[in-house]
């Protein structure tokens, strides 16, 4: 019984970790929604109500940057970065 519990816990942990590693998966609308995505992410980072909110927004923005770089790249990625750069004005 104990072994079964340990095994199930390990499996659950491993599933949770692998899900975290997946990160952001962009869909087919990612190019069209690039402006909105970038603007929203920047707004979340700038208008965060607490440090925890900011950290989470920062992480999301970084994840999206990586997603646009690895999944789309090229001009789309450059444009995404430009919008984010303009959006992070304070």
């Amino acid at each position, binding site marked *: 019984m104990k072994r079964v519990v340990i095994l199930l816990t390990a499996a659950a942990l491993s599933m949770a970790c692998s899900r975290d590693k997946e990160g952001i998966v962009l869909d087919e609308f990612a190019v069209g929604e690039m402006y909105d995505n970038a603007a929203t992410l920047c707004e979340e*980072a*700038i208008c*965060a109500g607490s*440090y925890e909110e*900011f*950290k989470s927004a*920062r992480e999301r*923005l*970084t994840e999206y*940057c990586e997603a646009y*770089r690895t999944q789309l790249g*090229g*001009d789309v*990625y*450059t444009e995404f*970065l*430009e919008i*984010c*750069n303009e959006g*992070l004005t*304070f």
Partner: protein
Amino acid sequence: MKTNIKSIIPALAAVAAGVALCTACGSEVKITKPSIDAQIIIDRSRTVETEAELRDLERLANEYELAYRRHINGAAAERFKELTADVLADAANVMQQYQQQQQTDQELRAEIDDKLAFLDRVWQLELTTPEQDSRKLEQIAAEAAEAESQLAALAAERTRITEALDAVGYDDDNADELLERYGNQMDEVDRRYAEVTADLEEIMTRVSLYRLAYKLQRGEVFPPVTEPEPEPENNESETCDEDCM
């Protein structure tokens, strides 16, 4: 046993000849027709992303061209060159654009990371009371004024050294010595100027940190704006008028 050795000798000779032929050929490519071989270069040019890959492709095209010159004729080599020249030029352009875009991306990403790191510093700044923080800001302002006066002094020193350098005549006995001395002084002043400028930038960053920290953490303006007290309404004239009436 003797018969066996004799039968092996021709085989050994053939292997040796093959090895010698391969060594003589070196890395020379196998040529077929200029249009077919050019297609190899065209196909590979589509995958060029780095300078090393481009150089490899150019080297391969050069090997083909040389092989045509050696084994066929100059016309075939020229034909091959003609078929691949544009493709190689395009590959070089594409590679350059790709590298330029990568650099732009890196710069933009670094700017974003810097801004996020700055916001992180803002959130981590521990605020006290507006009065206490105002005093800190005053200290920072004093540091900034000090740095600015140092910069002004260094700029004046730079002007003095430049004038001294201009005054050195080439017919002076100790011209070399003077030029070296003033050059060293100028280097030292430039180094100090760069240091103080960096300090001043850091000081100004601290000011921005406080301002933004108040805005983000407390939703307040910092330093607090003290509104001028409204002037008491002057009713004297009315009173006077009333009195007069």
